């Protein structure tokens, strides 16, 4: 075993000197923290699966076909083209069957962001009321939506739409949607409602079923769009089960969050949406592919990879769910044990599984801002993030954290850990141990 020494008054540079170690409380001691410097244990622990995931070998193998010999353009009429087209349709069926929808409702896009833009702008325009110059209609979006929903909805105000943001329930600390308030905001001219299924920062699982019943009662002509990017592969996504059957709905998905490739996603229209003959107006024009709703030469390898990834990710929710809960619990308990002053924003609770998803957890850290913590964690081989990768670039405070009631000072001290089914309890415990090795230094910054 390595050097053992006492930690007196910690200071920031100290953290650098111990980056190769991890900390442990000596059994039976309550006194000052003891750090045990062990041989380097810096095998990276990737806990940023909400940002992106590793492409699984079987997905990569599927893609290699299209990146190799099966390179045809699906619109070409020779066999190389029709084979590519058949591969795309196979992937379309895989996506549809994992959601229990019909394959003609699956529109492949370049990812979740484009799918969200297509849903918001495409459906709002398709359902626009009145003539140019008169009010176009009322839109409701969730309080914690991804920037792609917020920004595209904001752009619609220039087209005469009125955009309103729903709110979280003030009464509970678990970040649930205030559906009574949402219902009260619904109007006869509400044409579109967007609400994510699983929060990408702290894992709240929103009650889409109840929201959709409110829509059915108060704004039955409105279309409900569900950003399911963080939910895909983790919980069953069946519009027929999640959404009131009277409500037309759509779901946006992204392949790279489920060990599929980047650059491909889908907007999936529910059967109710198809039965109502509702299609979003295109936001990209030209070429005629995918019924002209989303033209452009299809990303054949990406789509094939998506098909393989979604089939793998959705075949055993029970096992995936168990693995995620195990990882989540291990992290929370290790953090509580090893890292003083940390508060889990929404702690896991076995009787709250209907309102929370295990795969993403946010914690409030003491002392230093999240950027500093992340820097030190990174040096210790623990890879996490502060909020979503999309926000990371912009240094803006997360509206989702503020909506949860955090002060802006607190919102700067939030770390996000996110898991995939491959994350083990050992990874999580080890991550917490490594975090402990810098915690006393950073807590007092």
């Amino acid at each position, binding site marked *: 075993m390595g050097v053992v020494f006492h930690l007196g008054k910690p200071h920031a540079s100290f953290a650098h000197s111990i980056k190769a170690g991890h900390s442990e409380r000596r059994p039976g001691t309550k006194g000052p923290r003891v750090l045990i410097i062990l041989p380097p244990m810096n095998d990276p622990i990737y806990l940023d699966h909400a*940002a992106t995931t590793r492409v699984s070998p079987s997905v990569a193998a599927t893609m290699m076909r299209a990146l190799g010999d099966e390179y*045809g353009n699906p619109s070409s009429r020779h066999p190389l083209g029709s084979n590519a087209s058949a591969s795309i349709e196979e992937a379309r069926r895989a996506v549809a069957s994992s959601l229990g929808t019909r394959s003609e409702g699956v529109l492949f896009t370049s990812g979740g*962001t484009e799918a969200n833009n297509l849903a918001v702008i495409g459906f709002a325009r398709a359902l626009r009321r009145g003539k140019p110059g008169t009010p176009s209609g009322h839109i409701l979006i969730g309080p914690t939506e991804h920037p*792609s929903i917020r920004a595209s909805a904001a752009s619609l105000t220039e087209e005469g739409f009125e955009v309103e943001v729903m709110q979280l329930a003030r009464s509970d600390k678990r970040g649930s949607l205030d559906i009574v308030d949402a219902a009260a905001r619904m109007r006869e001219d509400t044409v579109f409602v967007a609400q994510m299924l699983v929060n990408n920062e702290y894992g709240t699982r929103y009650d889409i079923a109840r929201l959709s019943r409110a829509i059915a009662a108060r704004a039955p002509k409105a279309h409900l769009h569900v950003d399911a990017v963080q939910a895909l592969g983790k919980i069953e996504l069946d519009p027929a089960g999640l959404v009131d059957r009277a409500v037309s709905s759509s779901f946006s998905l992204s392949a790279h969050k489920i060990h599929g490739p*980047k650059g491909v996603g889908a907007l999936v229209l529910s059967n109710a949406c198809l039965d109502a003959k509702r299609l979003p107006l295109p936001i990209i*024009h030209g*070429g005629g592919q995918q019924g002209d709703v989303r*033209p452009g030469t299809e990303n054949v390898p990406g789509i094939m990879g998506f098909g393989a990834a979604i089939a793998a990710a959705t075949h055993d929710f029970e096992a995936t769910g168990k693995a995620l809960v195990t990882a989540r619990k291990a992290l929370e308990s290790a953090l509580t044990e090893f890292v003083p002053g940390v508060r889990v924003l929404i702690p896991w609770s076995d009787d709250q599984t209907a309102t929370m998803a295990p795969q993403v957890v946010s914690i409030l850290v003491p002392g230093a801002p999240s950027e500093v913590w992340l820097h030190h964690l990174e040096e210790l081989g623990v890879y996490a993030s502060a909020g979503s990768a999309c926000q990371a*670039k912009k240094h803006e405070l997360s509206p989702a954290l503020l909506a949860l009631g955090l002060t802006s000072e607190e919102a700067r001290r939030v770390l996000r850990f996110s898991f995939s089914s491959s994350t083990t309890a050992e990874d999580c415990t080890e991550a917490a141990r490594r975090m402990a090795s810098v915690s006393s230094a950073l807590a007092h910054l």
Partner: protein
Amino acid sequence: MKTPIYLDYQATTPVDARVLEAMLPYFTEHFGNAASRNHPFGWKAEEAVDTAREEVAKLIGSSSKEVVFTSGSTEAINLALKGAVEMYGDSDHGKVKGRHIITSLVEHKAVLDVCKHLEKNGCDVTYLTPDKTGRVSVEQIAEAMREDTLMVALIWGNNEIGTINPIREIGALCHEKDVLFFVDGTQAVGKIPVDVYADNIDLMCLSAHKMYGPKGVGALFVRRRQPRVRLVSQIDGGGHERGMRSGTLNVPSLVGFGEACRLCRENLEKEMAHTTGLRVRLEARIRASLDEVHLNGNADHLLPGCLNLSFAYVEGESLLMGINNSLAVSSGSACTSASLEPSHVLRAMGVGDDLAHSSIRFGIGRNTTEEEVDFAADRIIETVKRLRDLSPLYEMALEGIDLSSVEWAGH
């Protein structure tokens, strides 16, 4: 030799083995999100995207800051045209240029469809008819220009017939008149020399899968100086690509795109010579055995690897059926070939429906060999001869009857 012989390089190209090799580590090893700022997976991804961006920039003579990555050419075209109209077409964003767009009837469907959409939204679009080789002249553009002309949008190398437009000259005119110049470079970039500054281009789309890179990625060149072009983004959220195009970057495919650009840049002259040589060989071999073969395109201004021929007195569908097992070729562009409508490009050039229906586009590329080209020519010759032997029209033509003077009896 493996059949069918692939001669459809304008529809798509195989991913070059070197491109694929460059991509592979980014699927499973360096799999980070380029927007992740806090760990090496993110940094490695961002670095890879930066390198790719530099390679794209080098190939087209721009700076890397002028390259906006998209999901392909179609999206890039949408961003360029709609983004410019929204930025400059009305008073919302300050400088007003106008809402008149000049384009041509032989553009790719993506440009035409976007123009149609813009017309519904208050734009005025002039569709120029090209000459019978499919080329648009500087004079035509000059004549069509108005006070309120916002943009000229033209294809560089035509995807169906390979005709190359006089881009540099038209660009000079646009700059003289303070009109934005958008070029659809999808078929030209990587195949002929491209230098966006020397060629006076403001906006240009390109696509990886037309140049031995993967499908699902492309780029838009957006000029940053003299003039600095600004666009209203079309896909919002997250603010990637300097706010012009949001969405998690497709890192492995962009790595492939960059490598594809590098290979095109380093081998440009060699490949131009290779594909031009094969194109000339193919045409000569066909013409040596067949008469009444018409070139659709401009013999003096043709993409190196594109040859579009019409075979008179032959029915197009029968011709395609006859060669389908041995040759992978297209009639018309891939995006429109699912319909039996004659190609809008050939129509605009004044090619009659019969000749348009019997047109075949031969796309020659990096991997095409002399042996393949000879084989293709022989299959074409064989099939056309067989079909003409069955054709009363060809027989009449051989006898010197002017078919246009024949009065056909109705049924």
